[in-house]
């Protein structure tokens, strides 16, 4: 809508305005990996505890760069958004998550 000053986000893809997703709907299904279930569960619990609303989750995902939005898998996008909200709310210190990942990685055999 030319009268609208607000730019359309990449997530707002109904009608395929970017002409990027016109291919067949991919029908392969995968069983969720344990880490995907873990992200799903964490997010559900945070929602239930009032620490991240569904809209905060959504905004965190919508705020990803277009490149990341297209590249990251579903639960990778969730993970990014949850970490972001936790940082904004001061529950996690900025950088704490990356540091913990590095720590776990160093311990990996």
């Amino acid at each position, binding site marked *: *809508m030319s*009268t*609208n*000053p*607000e730019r*359309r*986000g990449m997530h*707002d893809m*109904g*009608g395929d*305005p970017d002409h990027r997703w016109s291919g067949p709907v991919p029908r392969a299904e995968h069983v969720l990996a344990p880490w995907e279930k873990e992200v799903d569960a964490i997010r559900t619990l945070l929602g239930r505890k009032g620490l991240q*609303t*569904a*809209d*905060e989750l*959504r*905004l965190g995902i*919508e*705020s990803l760069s277009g490149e990341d939005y297209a590249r990251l898998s579903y639960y990778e996008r969730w993970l990014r958004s949850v970490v972001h909200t936790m940082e*904004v*709310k001061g529950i996690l210190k900025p950088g704490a998550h990356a540091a913990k990942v590095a720590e776990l990685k160093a311990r990996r055999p």
Partner: protein
Amino acid sequence: MSARFRPGDRVRVTAERPAISIGRAHIRTPHYVRGQDGMIAEVMGPFRNPEGLATGGDGLPMQVLYRVRFPQPQLWPGYAGPAKDTLEVEIYEHWLEPIHAA
């Protein structure tokens, strides 16, 4: 809170972002219905405003949520199906304005 519209009312979806919106943009009204005319299919009652909930706010005041119905050929020029096909979207009241019969 009372609903401004009733089932069957003709409404237009705001094309501009309504002034009531606060904070960083998180909007549940898809671009493809903005500026479009539709009909109230059902009044779903008051809900917290997602535009506030997205940024740590309480989403108050609540907004009445509607299911608004659009004819598909109106939304999509060259729509490939029959003219009777429709689409319904949930839209909050502050995105809707009345259409008065000409």
